Protein backbone atom coordinates (compact mmCIF):
# COMPACT_ATOMS: atom_id res chain seq x y z
CA UNK A 1 0.00 0.00 0.00
CA UNK A 2 1.32 3.43 -0.87
CA UNK A 3 1.29 6.43 1.42
CA UNK A 4 -1.43 8.04 -0.72
CA UNK A 5 -3.67 4.99 -0.46
CA UNK A 6 -3.13 4.83 3.28
CA UNK A 7 -4.12 8.45 3.79
CA UNK A 8 -7.16 8.08 1.54
CA UNK A 9 -8.39 5.43 3.96
CA UNK A 10 -7.67 7.77 6.88
CA UNK A 11 -9.72 10.42 5.08
CA UNK A 12 -12.60 7.97 4.81
CA UNK A 13 -12.45 7.20 8.53
CA UNK A 14 -12.31 10.92 9.38
CA UNK A 15 -15.38 11.64 7.29
CA UNK A 16 -17.22 8.80 9.00
CA UNK A 17 -16.37 10.25 12.42
CA UNK A 18 -17.49 13.72 11.30
CA UNK A 19 -20.81 12.38 10.03
CA UNK A 20 -21.31 10.55 13.31
CA UNK A 21 -20.79 13.83 15.12
CA UNK A 22 -23.18 15.66 12.85
CA UNK A 23 -25.89 13.10 13.47
CA UNK A 24 -25.52 12.64 17.21
CA UNK A 25 -24.58 16.13 18.37
CA UNK A 26 -27.03 18.99 18.26
CA UNK A 27 -25.02 21.73 19.92
CA UNK A 28 -24.31 24.31 17.22
CA UNK A 29 -20.66 24.70 18.15
CA UNK A 30 -20.13 20.96 17.90
CA UNK A 31 -21.87 20.80 14.57
CA UNK A 32 -19.62 23.52 13.25
CA UNK A 33 -16.63 21.57 14.55
CA UNK A 34 -17.90 18.40 12.88
CA UNK A 35 -18.33 20.18 9.54
CA UNK A 36 -14.76 21.42 9.86
CA UNK A 37 -13.50 17.89 10.51
CA UNK A 38 -15.43 16.75 7.46
CA UNK A 39 -13.81 19.48 5.40
CA UNK A 40 -10.38 18.37 6.57
CA UNK A 41 -11.15 14.80 5.52
CA UNK A 42 -12.00 15.97 1.99
CA UNK A 43 -8.83 18.07 1.90
CA UNK A 44 -6.83 15.05 3.03
CA UNK A 45 -8.21 12.98 0.18
CA UNK A 46 -7.32 15.71 -2.30
CA UNK A 47 -3.76 15.97 -1.04
CA UNK A 48 -3.41 12.20 -1.04
CA UNK A 49 -4.50 12.25 -4.69
CA UNK A 50 -1.85 14.86 -5.44
CA UNK A 51 0.76 12.50 -4.04
CA UNK A 52 -0.18 9.29 -5.78
CA UNK A 53 1.86 9.62 -8.96
CA UNK A 54 5.44 8.80 -7.92
CA UNK A 55 6.88 11.08 -10.61
CA UNK A 56 5.74 14.43 -9.30
CA UNK A 57 3.63 16.21 -6.68
CA UNK A 58 0.57 17.77 -8.29
CA UNK A 59 0.32 21.47 -7.32
CA UNK A 60 -3.29 21.90 -8.46
CA UNK A 61 -4.92 20.00 -5.56
CA UNK A 62 -2.63 21.91 -3.20
CA UNK A 63 -3.95 25.18 -4.60
CA UNK A 64 -7.49 23.82 -4.30
CA UNK A 65 -6.97 22.87 -0.66
CA UNK A 66 -5.37 26.22 0.14
CA UNK A 67 -8.45 27.91 -1.32
CA UNK A 68 -10.61 25.47 0.60
CA UNK A 69 -8.89 26.26 3.92
CA UNK A 70 -9.54 29.98 3.50
CA UNK A 71 -13.16 29.34 2.51
CA UNK A 72 -13.55 27.04 5.53
CA UNK A 73 -12.31 29.68 7.95
CA UNK A 74 -14.60 32.31 6.37
CA UNK A 75 -17.63 30.08 6.59
CA UNK A 76 -16.73 29.04 10.14
CA UNK A 77 -16.34 32.64 11.24
CA UNK A 78 -19.76 33.56 9.88
CA UNK A 79 -21.37 30.42 11.27
CA UNK A 80 -19.99 31.21 14.73
CA UNK A 81 -21.34 34.76 14.67
CA UNK A 82 -24.71 33.48 13.46
CA UNK A 83 -24.77 30.81 16.17
CA UNK A 84 -23.96 33.41 18.82
CA UNK A 85 -26.72 35.72 17.64
CA UNK A 86 -29.15 32.81 17.57
CA UNK A 87 -28.13 31.90 21.12
CA UNK A 88 -28.54 35.43 22.39
CA UNK A 89 -31.96 35.78 20.68
CA UNK A 90 -33.35 32.44 21.83
CA UNK A 91 -31.16 31.13 24.63
CA UNK A 92 -30.90 27.87 22.71
CA UNK A 93 -27.67 26.16 21.80
CA UNK A 94 -29.30 23.91 19.23
CA UNK A 95 -31.76 24.14 16.39
CA UNK A 96 -35.35 23.14 17.09
CA UNK A 97 -36.63 19.87 15.63
CA UNK A 98 -38.42 21.57 12.78
CA UNK A 99 -39.60 25.01 11.90
CA UNK A 100 -42.83 24.18 10.14
Amino acid sequence: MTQAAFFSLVAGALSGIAIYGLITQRHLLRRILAVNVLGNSVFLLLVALARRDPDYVDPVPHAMVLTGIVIAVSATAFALVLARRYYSETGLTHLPEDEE
Partner: protein
Amino acid sequence: MSGVALPLSFFVPLLTALVVFVIGVRRAYGVILLGALTTLAVALYVAYAVAVGGPQVHYLGGWEPPLGVELYADGLSALMLAMTALVGAGVTLYAGPYLRGKGHDGERFWPLWLVQWATLNGTFLSADLFNLYVMLELLTLTAAPLAAMAGDRPSLAAAMRYLLLALLGSMAYLLGVALLYGGTGTLHLREAGELAGAEPYTAVAAALMTAGLFAKAAVFPLHIWLMPAHSNAPAPASAALSALVAKAGLYLVLRLWLWTFPALLSAPMGWLIGGLGAVAVVYGSVQALRQPRLKQVIAYSTIAQLGYLLLLLPLVALPAAAVSAWHGVVLHALAHGFAKAGAFLAAGNMIYCLGHDRLEGLRGVTPYLSVTLLALGLAFVSLMGLPPSGGFLAKWLLLEGALAAGQWFWGGVVLLGGLIAAAYSFRVLALAHAEVPHGYAEIRSPRRLPPAMEWAPLALVLLAYGMLLGGVPILELLDQGAPEGVR
Protein backbone atom coordinates in the same frame (compact mmCIF):
# COMPACT_ATOMS: atom_id res chain seq x y z
CA MET B 1 -13.52 40.93 -28.36
CA SER B 2 -17.03 39.77 -27.56
CA GLY B 3 -15.46 37.20 -25.25
CA VAL B 4 -14.58 39.95 -22.77
CA ALA B 5 -18.27 40.37 -22.03
CA LEU B 6 -18.23 37.05 -20.18
CA PRO B 7 -15.75 38.07 -17.46
CA LEU B 8 -17.28 41.55 -17.38
CA SER B 9 -20.61 40.14 -16.30
CA PHE B 10 -18.81 38.85 -13.20
CA PHE B 11 -16.58 41.83 -12.56
CA VAL B 12 -19.05 44.68 -13.10
CA PRO B 13 -21.44 43.82 -10.26
CA LEU B 14 -18.52 42.75 -8.06
CA LEU B 15 -16.69 46.04 -8.43
CA THR B 16 -19.95 47.93 -7.97
CA ALA B 17 -20.41 46.13 -4.67
CA LEU B 18 -16.92 47.08 -3.53
CA VAL B 19 -17.38 50.73 -4.48
CA VAL B 20 -20.72 50.82 -2.68
CA PHE B 21 -19.12 49.33 0.41
CA VAL B 22 -16.37 51.93 0.46
CA ILE B 23 -18.33 55.10 -0.19
CA GLY B 24 -21.53 54.14 1.58
CA VAL B 25 -25.01 53.63 0.17
CA ARG B 26 -26.27 57.14 0.68
CA ARG B 27 -23.70 58.58 -1.66
CA ALA B 28 -23.61 55.56 -3.96
CA TYR B 29 -27.19 55.11 -5.04
CA GLY B 30 -26.33 56.36 -8.50
CA VAL B 31 -23.40 53.93 -8.62
CA ILE B 32 -25.72 51.06 -7.79
CA LEU B 33 -28.13 51.93 -10.57
CA LEU B 34 -25.29 52.47 -13.01
CA GLY B 35 -23.74 49.11 -12.08
CA ALA B 36 -27.08 47.32 -12.44
CA LEU B 37 -27.75 48.87 -15.83
CA THR B 38 -24.25 48.06 -17.05
CA THR B 39 -24.64 44.47 -15.90
CA LEU B 40 -27.96 44.26 -17.69
CA ALA B 41 -26.42 45.62 -20.86
CA VAL B 42 -23.50 43.19 -20.65
CA ALA B 43 -25.83 40.23 -20.07
CA LEU B 44 -28.08 41.17 -22.98
CA TYR B 45 -25.00 41.63 -25.12
CA VAL B 46 -23.80 38.12 -24.21
CA ALA B 47 -27.21 36.74 -25.18
CA TYR B 48 -27.05 38.62 -28.47
CA ALA B 49 -23.52 37.43 -29.17
CA VAL B 50 -24.49 33.83 -28.49
CA ALA B 51 -27.60 34.10 -30.63
CA VAL B 52 -25.60 35.49 -33.54
CA GLY B 53 -22.24 33.79 -33.19
CA GLY B 54 -22.87 30.55 -31.31
CA PRO B 55 -21.33 29.62 -27.96
CA GLN B 56 -18.80 32.14 -26.59
CA VAL B 57 -15.61 31.14 -24.83
CA HIS B 58 -13.13 33.10 -22.77
CA TYR B 59 -10.00 31.55 -21.29
CA LEU B 60 -9.21 33.44 -18.11
CA GLY B 61 -5.57 34.42 -17.96
CA GLY B 62 -5.19 33.11 -21.49
CA TRP B 63 -4.64 29.56 -20.17
CA GLU B 64 -6.65 26.88 -21.87
CA PRO B 65 -8.11 23.98 -19.90
CA PRO B 66 -7.03 21.79 -18.24
CA LEU B 67 -4.52 24.34 -16.97
CA GLY B 68 -6.77 27.38 -16.71
CA VAL B 69 -10.38 28.24 -16.05
CA GLU B 70 -12.76 28.59 -18.98
CA LEU B 71 -15.80 30.82 -19.09
CA TYR B 72 -18.33 29.40 -21.48
CA ALA B 73 -21.66 30.80 -22.61
CA ASP B 74 -24.03 28.66 -24.63
CA GLY B 75 -27.73 29.26 -25.14
CA LEU B 76 -28.64 27.96 -21.68
CA SER B 77 -26.05 30.15 -19.91
CA ALA B 78 -27.02 33.17 -21.96
CA LEU B 79 -30.69 32.77 -21.14
CA MET B 80 -30.05 32.30 -17.44
CA LEU B 81 -27.70 35.28 -17.49
CA ALA B 82 -30.28 37.47 -19.20
CA MET B 83 -33.07 36.32 -16.89
CA THR B 84 -30.86 37.03 -13.87
CA ALA B 85 -30.01 40.45 -15.22
CA LEU B 86 -33.66 41.37 -15.81
CA VAL B 87 -34.78 40.08 -12.43
CA GLY B 88 -31.71 41.66 -10.85
CA ALA B 89 -32.46 45.02 -12.38
CA GLY B 90 -36.04 44.78 -11.14
CA VAL B 91 -34.89 43.83 -7.64
CA THR B 92 -32.35 46.65 -7.62
CA LEU B 93 -34.90 49.27 -8.65
CA TYR B 94 -37.33 47.95 -6.10
CA ALA B 95 -34.98 47.51 -3.18
CA GLY B 96 -33.97 51.16 -2.85
CA PRO B 97 -37.35 52.58 -1.85
CA TYR B 98 -38.38 49.37 -0.08
CA LEU B 99 -35.40 49.32 2.27
CA ARG B 100 -35.69 53.04 2.93
CA GLY B 101 -39.39 52.76 3.65
CA LYS B 102 -39.06 49.75 5.92
CA GLY B 103 -36.12 51.15 7.82
CA HIS B 104 -33.85 48.25 6.82
CA ASP B 105 -30.15 48.86 6.76
CA GLY B 106 -29.17 49.35 3.14
CA GLU B 107 -25.49 49.37 4.06
CA ARG B 108 -25.81 45.70 4.88
CA PHE B 109 -28.03 44.73 1.97
CA TRP B 110 -26.47 46.31 -1.10
CA PRO B 111 -22.92 44.92 -1.11
CA LEU B 112 -24.21 41.43 -0.37
CA TRP B 113 -26.82 41.55 -3.09
CA LEU B 114 -24.42 42.90 -5.70
CA VAL B 115 -21.79 40.26 -4.86
CA GLN B 116 -24.55 37.70 -5.08
CA TRP B 117 -25.47 38.93 -8.54
CA ALA B 118 -21.83 38.68 -9.64
CA THR B 119 -21.68 35.17 -8.21
CA LEU B 120 -24.83 34.09 -10.02
CA ASN B 121 -23.34 35.28 -13.30
CA GLY B 122 -20.12 33.47 -12.46
CA THR B 123 -22.04 30.29 -11.72
CA PHE B 124 -23.85 30.41 -15.04
CA LEU B 125 -20.67 31.07 -17.02
CA SER B 126 -17.96 29.01 -15.34
CA ALA B 127 -17.02 25.76 -17.01
CA ASP B 128 -14.64 24.71 -14.25
CA LEU B 129 -15.75 22.33 -11.53
CA PHE B 130 -13.57 23.79 -8.80
CA ASN B 131 -14.32 27.38 -9.71
CA LEU B 132 -17.97 26.41 -9.43
CA TYR B 133 -17.28 25.18 -5.89
CA VAL B 134 -15.94 28.61 -4.96
CA MET B 135 -18.97 30.23 -6.60
CA LEU B 136 -21.31 27.93 -4.68
CA GLU B 137 -19.69 28.92 -1.40
CA LEU B 138 -20.05 32.57 -2.32
CA LEU B 139 -23.73 31.98 -3.07
CA THR B 140 -24.20 30.35 0.33
CA LEU B 141 -22.37 33.07 2.20
CA THR B 142 -24.37 35.80 0.51
CA ALA B 143 -27.72 34.02 0.74
CA ALA B 144 -27.57 33.04 4.42
CA PRO B 145 -27.16 36.59 5.80
CA LEU B 146 -29.87 37.89 3.47
CA ALA B 147 -32.17 35.22 4.89
CA ALA B 148 -31.14 36.14 8.45
CA MET B 149 -31.61 39.86 7.94
CA ALA B 150 -34.87 40.03 9.87
CA GLY B 151 -32.95 38.88 12.95
CA ASP B 152 -35.86 37.12 14.62
CA ARG B 153 -35.92 33.57 15.81
CA PRO B 154 -37.38 31.76 12.77
CA SER B 155 -35.15 33.51 10.27
CA LEU B 156 -32.01 33.02 12.36
CA ALA B 157 -32.80 29.36 12.84
CA ALA B 158 -33.53 28.98 9.13
CA ALA B 159 -30.31 30.73 8.15
CA MET B 160 -28.31 28.56 10.55
CA ARG B 161 -29.91 25.41 9.21
CA TYR B 162 -29.35 26.54 5.65
CA LEU B 163 -25.72 27.37 6.37
CA LEU B 164 -24.94 24.01 7.97
CA LEU B 165 -26.75 22.08 5.27
CA ALA B 166 -25.12 24.11 2.52
CA LEU B 167 -21.65 23.64 4.00
CA LEU B 168 -22.29 19.92 4.17
CA GLY B 169 -23.51 20.05 0.59
CA SER B 170 -20.43 21.88 -0.62
CA MET B 171 -18.21 19.30 1.04
CA ALA B 172 -20.07 16.55 -0.82
CA TYR B 173 -19.67 18.54 -4.03
CA LEU B 174 -15.97 19.11 -3.41
CA LEU B 175 -15.46 15.42 -2.72
CA GLY B 176 -17.06 14.66 -6.09
CA VAL B 177 -14.76 17.18 -7.76
CA ALA B 178 -11.77 15.57 -6.05
CA LEU B 179 -12.72 12.15 -7.38
CA LEU B 180 -13.22 13.47 -10.90
CA TYR B 181 -9.90 15.29 -10.85
CA GLY B 182 -8.18 12.22 -9.47
CA GLY B 183 -9.60 10.07 -12.25
CA THR B 184 -9.21 12.42 -15.18
CA GLY B 185 -6.64 15.06 -14.31
CA THR B 186 -8.89 17.90 -15.44
CA LEU B 187 -11.45 20.15 -13.80
CA HIS B 188 -13.18 21.20 -16.99
CA LEU B 189 -16.89 20.46 -17.00
CA ARG B 190 -17.03 18.70 -20.35
CA GLU B 191 -13.51 17.29 -20.60
CA ALA B 192 -13.81 15.59 -17.21
CA GLY B 193 -17.04 13.91 -18.29
CA GLU B 194 -15.63 12.76 -21.61
CA LEU B 195 -12.46 11.38 -20.05
CA ALA B 196 -14.21 9.68 -17.16
CA GLY B 197 -16.96 7.78 -18.96
CA ALA B 198 -19.17 5.52 -16.87
CA GLU B 199 -16.76 4.22 -14.24
CA PRO B 200 -17.88 3.34 -10.70
CA TYR B 201 -16.06 6.33 -9.24
CA THR B 202 -17.80 8.64 -11.71
CA ALA B 203 -21.13 7.36 -10.47
CA VAL B 204 -20.12 8.09 -6.88
CA ALA B 205 -18.88 11.53 -7.87
CA ALA B 206 -22.14 12.26 -9.71
CA ALA B 207 -24.19 11.11 -6.72
CA LEU B 208 -22.15 13.22 -4.28
CA MET B 209 -22.28 16.34 -6.40
CA THR B 210 -26.00 15.98 -7.05
CA ALA B 211 -26.75 15.44 -3.38
CA GLY B 212 -24.61 18.42 -2.44
CA LEU B 213 -26.41 20.65 -4.91
CA PHE B 214 -29.78 19.37 -3.74
CA ALA B 215 -28.93 20.57 -0.25
CA LYS B 216 -28.16 24.01 -1.66
CA ALA B 217 -31.27 24.15 -3.82
CA ALA B 218 -33.71 22.84 -1.18
CA VAL B 219 -34.86 19.83 -3.15
CA PHE B 220 -37.16 17.53 -1.19
CA PRO B 221 -36.20 16.05 1.39
CA LEU B 222 -33.61 18.78 2.10
CA HIS B 223 -36.16 21.56 1.84
CA ILE B 224 -37.05 22.46 5.43
CA TRP B 225 -34.94 25.60 5.62
CA LEU B 226 -36.30 27.19 2.47
CA MET B 227 -39.73 28.31 3.61
CA PRO B 228 -38.69 30.21 6.78
CA ALA B 229 -35.55 31.54 5.11
CA HIS B 230 -37.28 32.88 2.02
CA SER B 231 -40.44 34.10 3.67
CA ASN B 232 -38.74 36.08 6.45
CA ALA B 233 -36.11 37.86 4.36
CA PRO B 234 -36.79 41.41 3.14
CA ALA B 235 -38.94 41.20 -0.01
CA PRO B 236 -36.22 42.03 -2.56
CA ALA B 237 -33.92 39.46 -0.94
CA SER B 238 -36.73 36.89 -1.01
CA ALA B 239 -37.20 37.54 -4.69
CA ALA B 240 -33.50 37.06 -5.41
CA LEU B 241 -33.20 33.95 -3.23
CA SER B 242 -36.28 32.25 -4.63
CA ALA B 243 -36.09 33.25 -8.26
CA LEU B 244 -32.31 33.06 -8.71
CA VAL B 245 -30.20 31.49 -5.96
CA ALA B 246 -32.13 28.28 -5.44
CA LYS B 247 -32.39 27.91 -9.20
CA ALA B 248 -28.63 28.28 -9.66
CA GLY B 249 -28.18 25.04 -7.71
CA LEU B 250 -30.62 23.17 -9.95
CA TYR B 251 -29.13 24.77 -13.05
CA LEU B 252 -25.85 23.15 -12.04
CA VAL B 253 -27.55 19.79 -11.49
CA LEU B 254 -28.91 19.87 -15.03
CA ARG B 255 -25.63 21.18 -16.42
CA LEU B 256 -23.70 18.38 -14.72
CA TRP B 257 -26.01 15.60 -15.83
CA LEU B 258 -26.29 16.75 -19.43
CA TRP B 259 -22.69 17.88 -20.00
CA THR B 260 -20.50 15.95 -17.56
CA PHE B 261 -22.34 12.72 -16.80
CA PRO B 262 -24.56 11.96 -19.81
CA ALA B 263 -23.06 8.48 -19.86
CA LEU B 264 -24.52 7.76 -16.43
CA LEU B 265 -28.03 8.97 -17.17
CA SER B 266 -29.81 5.64 -17.08
CA ALA B 267 -33.53 5.10 -16.67
CA PRO B 268 -33.43 4.19 -12.94
CA MET B 269 -31.24 7.20 -12.17
CA GLY B 270 -33.62 9.45 -14.08
CA TRP B 271 -36.57 7.98 -12.22
CA LEU B 272 -34.90 8.49 -8.88
CA ILE B 273 -34.12 12.16 -9.43
CA GLY B 274 -37.33 12.84 -11.33
CA GLY B 275 -39.22 11.09 -8.53
CA LEU B 276 -37.74 13.50 -5.99
CA GLY B 277 -38.82 16.32 -8.26
CA ALA B 278 -42.34 14.92 -8.49
CA VAL B 279 -42.60 14.59 -4.70
CA ALA B 280 -41.38 18.18 -4.36
CA VAL B 281 -44.03 19.37 -6.86
CA VAL B 282 -46.88 17.74 -4.98
CA TYR B 283 -45.58 18.35 -1.46
CA GLY B 284 -44.70 22.00 -2.02
CA SER B 285 -48.03 22.75 -3.63
CA VAL B 286 -50.02 21.05 -0.87
CA GLN B 287 -48.05 22.90 1.81
CA ALA B 288 -48.60 26.18 -0.02
CA LEU B 289 -52.35 25.58 0.30
CA ARG B 290 -52.09 25.48 4.07
CA GLN B 291 -50.03 28.59 4.81
CA PRO B 292 -51.55 31.57 6.60
CA ARG B 293 -49.22 34.21 5.12
CA LEU B 294 -48.70 35.31 1.55
CA LYS B 295 -44.92 35.06 1.50
CA GLN B 296 -45.09 31.57 2.98
CA VAL B 297 -47.42 30.52 0.17
CA ILE B 298 -45.01 31.90 -2.39
CA ALA B 299 -42.02 30.27 -0.68
CA TYR B 300 -43.64 26.83 -0.67
CA SER B 301 -44.61 27.36 -4.27
CA THR B 302 -40.86 27.73 -4.97
CA ILE B 303 -40.21 24.24 -3.59
CA ALA B 304 -42.89 22.91 -5.91
CA GLN B 305 -41.87 24.86 -8.98
CA LEU B 306 -38.20 23.91 -8.61
CA GLY B 307 -39.29 20.28 -8.63
CA TYR B 308 -40.43 20.62 -12.25
CA LEU B 309 -36.86 21.27 -13.32
CA LEU B 310 -35.86 17.78 -12.22
CA LEU B 311 -38.51 16.17 -14.42
CA LEU B 312 -36.10 16.75 -17.30
CA LEU B 313 -33.78 13.95 -16.25
CA PRO B 314 -36.17 11.01 -16.67
CA LEU B 315 -37.47 12.44 -19.98
CA VAL B 316 -34.26 13.53 -21.63
CA ALA B 317 -33.06 9.97 -22.15
CA LEU B 318 -36.11 9.20 -24.30
CA PRO B 319 -35.60 10.46 -27.87
CA ALA B 320 -39.29 11.16 -28.37
CA ALA B 321 -39.50 13.39 -25.33
CA ALA B 322 -36.04 14.88 -25.09
CA VAL B 323 -36.32 18.03 -27.18
CA SER B 324 -39.67 19.29 -25.94
CA ALA B 325 -38.87 18.38 -22.34
CA TRP B 326 -35.59 20.29 -22.58
CA HIS B 327 -37.27 23.33 -24.08
CA GLY B 328 -40.10 23.12 -21.57
CA VAL B 329 -37.85 22.86 -18.53
CA VAL B 330 -35.62 25.76 -19.51
CA LEU B 331 -38.60 27.94 -20.35
CA HIS B 332 -40.06 26.95 -17.01
CA ALA B 333 -36.91 28.09 -15.24
CA LEU B 334 -37.13 31.45 -16.97
CA ALA B 335 -40.87 31.94 -16.51
CA HIS B 336 -40.67 30.91 -12.88
CA GLY B 337 -37.83 33.35 -12.33
CA PHE B 338 -39.87 36.28 -13.61
CA ALA B 339 -43.16 35.26 -12.03
CA LYS B 340 -41.67 34.37 -8.67
CA ALA B 341 -39.64 37.54 -8.39
CA GLY B 342 -42.75 39.54 -9.33
CA ALA B 343 -44.86 37.69 -6.79
CA PHE B 344 -42.39 38.28 -3.95
CA LEU B 345 -42.04 41.94 -4.82
CA ALA B 346 -45.83 42.27 -4.93
CA ALA B 347 -46.01 40.63 -1.51
CA GLY B 348 -43.39 43.12 -0.40
CA ASN B 349 -45.72 45.92 -1.50
CA MET B 350 -48.44 44.54 0.75
CA ILE B 351 -46.06 44.34 3.69
CA TYR B 352 -44.92 47.85 2.90
CA CYS B 353 -48.45 49.22 2.83
CA LEU B 354 -50.24 47.10 5.39
CA GLY B 355 -47.38 46.14 7.67
CA HIS B 356 -48.20 42.44 7.36
CA ASP B 357 -48.90 39.78 4.75
CA ARG B 358 -51.51 37.64 6.53
CA LEU B 359 -53.92 36.35 3.94
CA GLU B 360 -56.98 37.01 6.09
CA GLY B 361 -55.94 40.63 6.41
CA LEU B 362 -55.79 41.19 2.68
CA ARG B 363 -59.54 41.59 2.30
CA GLY B 364 -60.50 44.82 0.70
CA VAL B 365 -57.10 46.05 -0.39
CA THR B 366 -57.97 46.01 -4.10
CA PRO B 367 -58.78 49.71 -4.50
CA TYR B 368 -55.47 50.78 -3.02
CA LEU B 369 -53.13 48.22 -4.48
CA SER B 370 -54.66 47.58 -7.87
CA VAL B 371 -51.40 47.49 -9.82
CA THR B 372 -49.76 45.27 -7.22
CA LEU B 373 -52.69 42.90 -7.21
CA LEU B 374 -52.68 42.78 -10.99
CA ALA B 375 -49.01 41.78 -10.85
CA LEU B 376 -49.71 39.18 -8.18
CA GLY B 377 -52.62 37.76 -10.14
CA LEU B 378 -50.66 37.55 -13.37
CA ALA B 379 -47.74 35.94 -11.51
CA PHE B 380 -50.00 33.26 -10.09
CA VAL B 381 -51.52 32.64 -13.51
CA SER B 382 -48.04 31.98 -14.84
CA LEU B 383 -47.20 29.72 -11.91
CA MET B 384 -50.38 27.74 -12.56
CA GLY B 385 -49.47 27.44 -16.21
CA LEU B 386 -52.54 29.01 -17.77
CA PRO B 387 -52.36 30.67 -21.18
CA PRO B 388 -51.11 33.16 -22.30
CA SER B 389 -48.22 33.05 -19.81
CA GLY B 390 -44.69 31.78 -20.19
CA GLY B 391 -45.51 29.19 -17.54
CA PHE B 392 -48.18 27.85 -19.87
CA LEU B 393 -45.75 27.48 -22.75
CA ALA B 394 -43.24 25.71 -20.52
CA LYS B 395 -45.71 23.27 -19.03
CA TRP B 396 -47.29 22.65 -22.41
CA LEU B 397 -43.94 21.66 -23.90
CA LEU B 398 -43.12 19.50 -20.90
CA LEU B 399 -46.49 17.79 -21.11
CA GLU B 400 -46.17 17.32 -24.85
CA GLY B 401 -42.77 15.69 -24.37
CA ALA B 402 -44.02 13.37 -21.64
CA LEU B 403 -47.06 12.30 -23.63
CA ALA B 404 -45.16 11.88 -26.89
CA ALA B 405 -42.93 9.34 -25.16
CA GLY B 406 -45.88 7.67 -23.48
CA GLN B 407 -44.72 8.77 -20.03
CA TRP B 408 -48.17 9.27 -18.54
CA PHE B 409 -46.82 9.42 -15.02
CA TRP B 410 -44.71 12.52 -15.58
CA GLY B 411 -47.50 14.14 -17.55
CA GLY B 412 -49.81 13.47 -14.63
CA VAL B 413 -47.35 15.10 -12.24
CA VAL B 414 -47.27 18.24 -14.39
CA LEU B 415 -51.06 18.41 -14.50
CA LEU B 416 -51.52 17.66 -10.80
CA GLY B 417 -48.97 20.30 -9.83
CA GLY B 418 -50.78 22.85 -11.99
CA LEU B 419 -54.11 21.98 -10.42
CA ILE B 420 -52.91 22.38 -6.85
CA ALA B 421 -51.13 25.58 -7.86
CA ALA B 422 -54.47 26.83 -9.16
CA ALA B 423 -56.03 25.97 -5.80
CA TYR B 424 -53.54 27.97 -3.73
CA SER B 425 -53.47 30.81 -6.22
CA PHE B 426 -57.22 31.24 -6.20
CA ARG B 427 -57.26 31.04 -2.43
CA VAL B 428 -54.92 34.04 -2.28
CA LEU B 429 -56.61 35.97 -5.06
CA ALA B 430 -60.10 35.34 -3.70
CA LEU B 431 -59.12 36.76 -0.33
CA ALA B 432 -57.38 39.74 -1.83
CA HIS B 433 -60.33 40.64 -4.00
CA ALA B 434 -62.92 39.96 -1.32
CA GLU B 435 -65.12 42.69 0.10
CA VAL B 436 -64.04 44.54 3.18
CA PRO B 437 -65.32 42.56 6.17
CA HIS B 438 -68.75 43.61 7.29
CA GLY B 439 -68.73 46.50 9.70
CA TYR B 440 -65.45 48.02 8.54
CA ALA B 441 -65.52 50.94 6.18
CA GLU B 442 -61.85 50.56 5.51
CA ILE B 443 -59.20 48.60 7.35
CA ARG B 444 -56.56 51.24 7.29
CA SER B 445 -55.41 53.84 4.91
CA PRO B 446 -52.38 52.27 3.27
CA ARG B 447 -49.14 54.11 2.68
CA ARG B 448 -48.60 55.40 -0.78
CA LEU B 449 -46.31 53.23 -2.85
CA PRO B 450 -43.34 54.84 -4.59
CA PRO B 451 -43.76 54.36 -8.34
CA ALA B 452 -40.69 52.11 -8.69
CA MET B 453 -42.19 49.70 -6.17
CA GLU B 454 -45.59 49.84 -7.77
CA TRP B 455 -44.45 49.05 -11.29
CA ALA B 456 -41.36 46.82 -10.82
CA PRO B 457 -43.35 43.67 -9.94
CA LEU B 458 -45.73 44.20 -12.84
CA ALA B 459 -42.86 44.73 -15.27
CA LEU B 460 -41.17 41.51 -14.12
CA VAL B 461 -44.36 39.50 -14.39
CA LEU B 462 -45.10 40.90 -17.83
CA LEU B 463 -41.71 39.57 -18.94
CA ALA B 464 -43.05 36.08 -18.23
CA TYR B 465 -45.86 36.87 -20.66
CA GLY B 466 -43.50 38.40 -23.18
CA MET B 467 -41.85 34.98 -23.37
CA LEU B 468 -44.86 33.73 -25.27
CA LEU B 469 -44.26 36.31 -27.97
CA GLY B 470 -40.52 35.72 -27.96
CA GLY B 471 -40.82 31.95 -27.76
CA VAL B 472 -39.24 31.17 -31.12
CA PRO B 473 -36.12 33.34 -30.77
CA ILE B 474 -35.67 32.11 -27.19
CA LEU B 475 -35.77 28.49 -28.30
CA GLU B 476 -33.39 29.22 -31.16
CA LEU B 477 -31.00 30.81 -28.70
CA LEU B 478 -31.36 27.80 -26.43
CA ASP B 479 -30.32 25.49 -29.27
CA GLN B 480 -26.91 27.19 -29.45
CA GLY B 481 -24.48 24.71 -28.01
CA ALA B 482 -27.16 22.37 -26.69
CA PRO B 483 -25.91 18.82 -26.08
CA GLU B 484 -26.44 16.10 -28.71
CA GLY B 485 -29.58 14.50 -27.40
CA VAL B 486 -31.74 17.59 -27.19
CA ARG B 487 -31.01 19.45 -30.39
